[in-house]
């Protein structure tokens, strides 16, 4: 038991790496121009959203293509709480998370009866239908016009508004990842992975499918709600058209490229989701506007295919196997421990 416990805690090297990462993350807004700070905030928001997607799809094996719909609901929950109830915007973030978490829990029940491809189908339809549904009650959601939110202002003169918001996002993202790490390393995480790798076997081992599957939905939607609230606050404007089904695809792209079923993959994926569309658009804007507008979908599609063919574990998988190779250089006749992804017989992909 002691051994098993120790293995779930990070090693000293890992802690050192995380400390360096934290210092870089905190220093970044003071070294970068202001607009890049906002970009980084968006990347963190996407990372939180992808973390949620990852828990549902990467860890518990339930395919969702409708994550963007929960982001939209989170953004509306936060905006409505601010505008109609006058609640401080920072407090609306957990409220949005709880609202989405409950909705996700509720959506998890019909989803229990939908397996694999059927769940993908239903959530895809959810992603496409959500904007038109959210626009409908115009008295609450502002209809087509949406809801305009006041800009975030920094409470201290030491930080600019963008820097302050970035620090808020960083703190919330750190809390979310800590929470997810804590859930996933223990009993619940094992139950999720067991369901993903073979639900019959999981049931045979006493895993309650219904409660763990709905729990995964609830956690995933909770994180989506938090990300959605932050996204709305960052944009200063909540409108259903800002959450098209392409957003759900973009999040899945980030999750797959980053590496499904890993925590670091969610962080890497967040950066991809934020910067890939921008960079591909900029790269092709010299040709003409039409080409530049189409660039993000083409590049994300091609990158998805490349990742699927070359490295199904995503960037996180590549990093893991290279770290492993550095730690255990191959020698002839040596019984090197197998690389992590080779020893794990199953995974999300």
């Amino acid at each position, binding site marked *: 038991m002691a051994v098993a416990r120790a293995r779930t805690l990070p090693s000293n090297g890992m802690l050192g790496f995380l400390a360096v990462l934290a210092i870089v993350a905190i220093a970044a807004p003071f070294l970068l121009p202001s607009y890049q700070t906002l970009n980084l905030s968006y990347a963190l928001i996407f990372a939180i959203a992808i973390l949620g997607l990852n828990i549902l*799809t990467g860890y518990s*094996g339930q*395919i969702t*293509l409708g994550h963007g719909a929960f982001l939209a609901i989170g953004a509306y929950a936060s905006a409505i709480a601010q505008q109609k109830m006058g609640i401080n915007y920072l407090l609306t973030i957990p409220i949005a998370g709880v609202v989405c978490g409950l909705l996700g829990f509720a959506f998890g029940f*019909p989803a229990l*009866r*939908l397996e*694999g*491809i*059927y769940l*993908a*189908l*239903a959530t*895809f*339809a*959810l992603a*496409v*239908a959500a904007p*038109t*549904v959210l626009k*409908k009650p115009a008295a609450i959601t502002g209809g087509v016009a949406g809801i305009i939110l006041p800009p975030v202002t920094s409470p201290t003169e030491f930080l600019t508004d963008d820097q302050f918001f970035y620090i808020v996002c960083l703190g919330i993202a750190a809390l979310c990842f800590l929470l997810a790490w804590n859930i996933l390393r223990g009993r619940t995480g094992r139950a999720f992975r067991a369901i993903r790798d073979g639900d*019959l076997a999981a049931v045979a081992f006493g895993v309650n499918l219904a409660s763990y599957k709905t729990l995964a939905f609830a956690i995933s939607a909770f994180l989506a709600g938090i990300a959605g609230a932050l996204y709305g606050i960052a944009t200063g404007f909540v409108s259903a058209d800002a959450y098209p*089904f392409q957003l759900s*695809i973009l999040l*899945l*792209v980030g999750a*797959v490229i980053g590496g*499904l079923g890993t925590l670091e993959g969610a962080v890497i994926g967040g950066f991809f989701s934020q910067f890939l569309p921008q960079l591909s658009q900029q790269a092709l804007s010299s040709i003409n506007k*039409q*080409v530049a*507008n*189409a*660039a*993000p*979908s*083409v*590049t*994300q*599609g*091609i990158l*998805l*295919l490349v990742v*699927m*063919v070359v490295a*199904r574990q995503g960037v996180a998988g590549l990093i893991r196997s290279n770290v492993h190779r550095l730690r255990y250089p191959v020698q002839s006749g040596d019984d090197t421990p197998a690389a992590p992804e080779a020893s794990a017989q199953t995974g*999300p*992909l």
Partner: protein
Amino acid sequence: MTFFLQQLVSGLAAGGAYASLALALVLIYSAMGLVNFAQGEFAMFATFIAWTLMVNLGVPYPLAFVLALGFAMLGAAAIERLIVRPFERGPQLGVVIVTLALLSITNGMAGFIWGYVPRAFPTPFPQNPVVIAGVYISIQDLGVIGVSLLVLGLIYILFNRTKLGLAMRTAALYPDSARLLGVSVGGMLAVGWGLASGVGAVSGILLAPSLFLEPNMMQQVIIYAFAAAVLGGIESPIGAVVGGLLLGVLLAMVGAYVQPLADLRLAVALLLIVVVLVVRPSGLLGQVHVRRV
């Protein structure tokens, strides 16, 4: 009554087009157990090909129609062989991701080539309606119903009355026996993708005059096609046709008689998908699968 009949005909016309795309999804699902999320985008791309042939090159409508279908079939068969094949036997998530990648790429390529400005699409049918027993019925609608039924009939004959159809059904149901009998199972899957894409292209070309042609044209239609396929039973080709026509009529009636839901047709389709999948996953005409636990 007159109003009702007019709604019925326009519902059937839209339903015929949904049925074609639903049939495309069903053809691939029943052969390989996978849903091609890019099916709508393939149809949109083929419709753009037809548009280019007609408007830029002056090809007459019937020839452009056939050429666009041929392009759609060859293109999809090639995509199946080159890109989808390695993932068919892997986890479902992998196939879903690959078809989503295809969706993204096809949509973006159409944007690259033709841009995002909606375009008018020519129709071969006269615009003025005919009057039958006091009911104004658009010839366009009748033509769309006629063409969809013709295509669906041809597919039925292909599967039930030809050797190729028999080989395809064998390859889908009993791949090992099919191989022993000398049927190229892989080849049949490529043919299946080609056929599906051709049928889907029909739906795109039929809908383009009323929807206007642009890269995101099929985004909502694919949801209706999913709903139609699920309603009819996702493994039943006849179910797809029945489901498509029913859905077309249902949405037309909702639009005409239930005003508050008129702009929530997508939500109606979503609700239908979830309810059918939860209550009766085999749909109206599908076979019920029993799972032993």
